């Protein structure tokens, strides 16, 4: 029963997303436009550090933009229904898991367009994709909670950015470090400790989000 409801929640999120095709299409256009603008303005990127930094900045903005929507559709009536029907842990886990899937897909798409327009510099593709996967899961954990907080504070879009940028910073720095290693094609043994930190951050973030959401939930 418990698991049934969790899968229901995730399914519901997908249904809501794809019922309004314009939202997903909007995200895609956003990604392509951002990457295209940076490709046009940078012309050609020679330095791997610049390539790396630009990619992660683009990804961070996309992640914040996408996940800020995840609690905005929760109207008062829906909120009451959710409150009566689900328990908060399931509810936030549903959001996080859905956001994880969405964010992982979007990160791959961003990388695809980015390497198409700007050119790829990655030597160790396996390492890069692993980093991308784990950081997008951790991003979605942080951003789901931040979006819940921002939605309680009158759904202010700039508030979402103000709240989440500083909190995302440790995650972002570890990801940038790891992807730099992937670009340089360093041996995996160099990256183990950073990968471990990234995975540990995933656990910390998701555990905190599930515990703390309980307190946001009550009105």
């Amino acid at each position, binding site marked *: 029963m418990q698991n049934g409801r969790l899968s229901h929640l995730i399914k519901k999120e997908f249904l809501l997303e794809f019922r309004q095709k314009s939202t997903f299409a909007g995200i895609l256009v956003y990604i392509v436009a951002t990457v295209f603008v940076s490709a046009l303005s940078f012309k050609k990127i020679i330095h791997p550090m610049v390539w790396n930094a630009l990619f992660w900045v683009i990804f961070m903005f996309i992640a914040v933009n996408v996940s800020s929507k995840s609690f905005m559709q929760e109207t008062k009536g829906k909120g009451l229904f959710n409150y009566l029907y689900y328990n908060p842990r399931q509810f936030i886990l549903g959001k996080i898991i859905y956001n994880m899937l969405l964010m992982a897909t979007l990160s791959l798409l961003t990388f695809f367009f980015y390497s198409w327009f700007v050119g790829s510099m990655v030597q160790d593709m396996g390492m890069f994709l692993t980093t991308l996967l784990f950081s997008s899961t951790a991003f979605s954990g*942080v951003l789901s*909670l931040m979006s819940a*907080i921002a939605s*309680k*504070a*009158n759904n*202010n879009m700039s*508030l979402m950015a*103000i*709240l989440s*940028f*500083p*909190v995302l*910073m*440790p995650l972002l*720095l*570890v990801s940038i470090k790891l992807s730099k290693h992937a670009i340089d094609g360093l041996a995996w043994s160099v990256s183990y*400790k*950073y990968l471990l*930190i990234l995975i540990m*951050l995933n656990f*910390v973030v998701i555990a*905190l*989000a599930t515990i*703390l959401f309980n*307190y*946001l939930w*009550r*009105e």
Partner: protein
Amino acid sequence: MIKWWKILAAVMILYTLVWGLLNPVPRLDILNETIRNVYYHVPIWFAMLFQMGYSVVFAIKQLAKNDMRSDLISNQAAQVGLFLSIPGLLTGCMWAKFTWGTWWTFEDPKLNGVAIAVLIYLAYFILRSSIIDELKRARIAAVYNIFAFVMMFVFIMILPRLTDSLHPGNGGNPAFGKYDLDSNMRTVFYPAVIGWVLLSLWILDIKKRLATLHYQKHEE
């Protein structure tokens, strides 16, 4: 009625201000006399972290008991913590100018950590000011406070251990900790830490009373 620990705070800080400049210090390359900054810069950071920790403890208490008193204390402690970051940064910048030759550098994880901590607490106050309902504000601010503190802790405590820092004691730089902080320096450093933490508690005490008065007046 003056409490004993307030007198202790004043005495200890006065003592470290005077004796910190007078007592002999080991002569180290690059650091030279600037090593005395360890009496002022480091205790201020300790006091700041203490206040931020204090704020989180009361945020947790707020969530557990849902009382406005804990929220008030948590908010005031965060303000004191943010305030202490200013002298901490100033003393650090001045020291860095004379030893590293620059006021600020993005190469050092500790400096970045402090910048992030300041941003986090600014965001915390913006979040507070954007919610009107008191009970709601208390709960949501507490949630952000706890989450942000954990992420900040990761940033300041764990990430710097992975990379080299320009700070003394990291990455082959001369350290205060192991052999340089000799027994002579300890006689100033430990009182300085206690003094600054007590002073921050004193400031918090005054702010707490002031905020309580404001709150009561607002209620009437």
